């Protein structure tokens, strides 16, 4: 187990190194990145000063070492806008709002999606199964930002039930979580359904039935426990897609998270902040996948020895 964790950890570090190199390479691809930081009001002196301040008069390998060592100390440059706050600090301030949205979405989707998946597997081919499958397919077919806008129009503009945007109060979570959950929920329904169908046909379930266990225990305890493994494997991907959705939904509901920050950075051509968002989100992705893999190896010993 320790060897496996060690090996995965090394892999994660290598991946992180590659991601940071890609981000670095992208930022240098335009030739002189100072051009990205200058505005139409900048003077020639600004250009020289920025070039020296950011170390762009040095060679590329030297620049990379400076970039990497700064990044390791949490220094990802400064925003070019406003009071030129450190990029890392800006991302750190906005991060909790996004994390709350993503985590609540995944929990809500899991709690609704998994039972729906179990029910459709047990009642395979029934009307309920068909209806839930269509519902799930629709959730995977509509863009989250559109669901958000329609939900906003119906529930807050027409019915005045919920606030249309903002962050802080519990009722302000409802619309963004609803918009994001449909897609994520659909993924949980489909995954649970397909792995439950496999489980229900397996030998140990037949044995459990022969032993005379109640159908309730057979389905919800024995079959479900084994069906959750494949669901867990995909949870990294599901969380990744949820984070992608969060970026879009935040711009719809004026949610003060890192997605909205990235959007503002694009509009303001604030490259250092955008770069910081990408690096931090990519690091989170890698960490989540690492945790999922370790958790998976812990639950299923076959993984460790392959």
């Amino acid at each position, binding site marked *: 187990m320790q060897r496996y964790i060690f090996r995965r950890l090394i892999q994660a570090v290598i991946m992180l190194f590659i991601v940071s190199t890609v981000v670095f390479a*992208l930022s240098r691809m*335009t030739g002189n990145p100072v051009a990205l930081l200058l505005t139409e009001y900048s003077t020639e002196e600004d250009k020289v000063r920025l070039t020296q301040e950011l170390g762009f008069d040095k060679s590329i390998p030297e620049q990379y070492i400076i970039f990497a060592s700064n990044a390791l100390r949490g220094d990802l440059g400064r925003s070019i806008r406003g009071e030129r706050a450190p990029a890392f600090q800006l991302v750190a301030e906005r991060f909790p709002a996004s994390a709350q949205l993503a985590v609540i979405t995944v929990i809500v989707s899991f709690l609704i999606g998994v039972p729906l998946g179990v029910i459709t597997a047990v009642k395979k081919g029934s009307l309920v199964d068909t209806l839930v499958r269509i519902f799930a397919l629709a959730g*995977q077919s509509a863009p989250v930002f559109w669901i958000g806008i329609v939900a906003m129009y119906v529930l807050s503009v027409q019915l005045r039930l919920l606030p249309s945007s903002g962050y802080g109060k519990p009722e302000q979570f409802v619309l963004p979580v609803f918009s994001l959950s449909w897609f994520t929920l659909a993924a949980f329904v*489909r995954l649970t359904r397909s792995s439950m169908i*496999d489980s229900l046909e397996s030998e140990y379930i037949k044995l459990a039935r022969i032993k005379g266990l109640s159908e309730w225990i057979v389905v919800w305890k024995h079959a479900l426990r084994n069906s959750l493994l494949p669901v867990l494997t995909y949870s990294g991907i599901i969380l990744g897609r949820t984070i992608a959705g969060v970026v879009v939904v935040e711009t719809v509901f004026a949610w003060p998270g890192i997605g909205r920050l990235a959007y503002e950075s694009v509009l303001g051509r604030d490259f250092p902040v955008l770069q910081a968002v990408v690096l931090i989100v990519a690091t989170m992705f890698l960490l989540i996948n690492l945790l999922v893999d370790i958790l998976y190896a812990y639950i299923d010993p076959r993984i460790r020895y392959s």
Partner: protein
Amino acid sequence: MRLGLADTITSIVGLTIILILVLMAIFAQQIAPYDPTAGSLLDRLKPPFWQEGGSTAHLLGTDVLGRDTLSRLIFGARTSLAVAVIAILVAGTIGSTLGIIAGYLGGWADIIIMRAADLAFSFPTILLAMVLAVIFGASFANIILVIALVLWAEYARMARGESLKIKSMDYVALARVAGVSKTKIMARHILPNISSSLIVLATLQVGVVIILESSLSFLGVGMPPPTPDWGAMISEGRSYVVTAWWLSLVPGVAILLTVLSFNLLGDALTEWMNPSSHRDA
């Protein structure tokens, strides 16, 4: 393998909608009543014909620049399908080639290619698109690049898995003994046998690409204006959601129907080719 009744019906419905869309995209010039980029400020924000104040001159109304919504919707089909087809062709070709190489050759090629695929899976797509848009400016080529960078990995994984299965079959061993080159074995013996799985994957990915592309346009890092684009139309209509809700609603319905049709078709194909397999998320 025969399909169930429900699957047959849904796949026919899906196929019909796809056919209509493709025709719409090809003959957009002939079908669309107006030029999709020409506005008329006198006809700004006209409602659709069934709403009060609407007329049959603009069946689905007009946007804030007075451009005909129906015409933009029809030309939008062209944008969406063009991006989807080209991005999938690029990603599919690169991904399948690398996947077959990884599966058949194994060793270092396998390790490097599959780690690269992991990397593609763990890179936040939408953020990457934003970075490229800031550096190079929004363009058609950028969108294809971003989408292909993410999608190739799925083809690589599938092609690798399938190649591994076929690699150990007798006819491949025979070809090897007969002195057929590695390249030829991969191209002539392995590729044709995994192509059906790759086609199903491609069908299922059309929806993914269309949603991704519309999200990019919604965020302003997709197709540059004034290209008619469904995602951009939703984004433009967002500011008028209180007074002109149909501006955002209509293109969203178009995306929903298109993606749903491709997903229905993809699901039916999966079921038809391999009834024992259940599609994952």
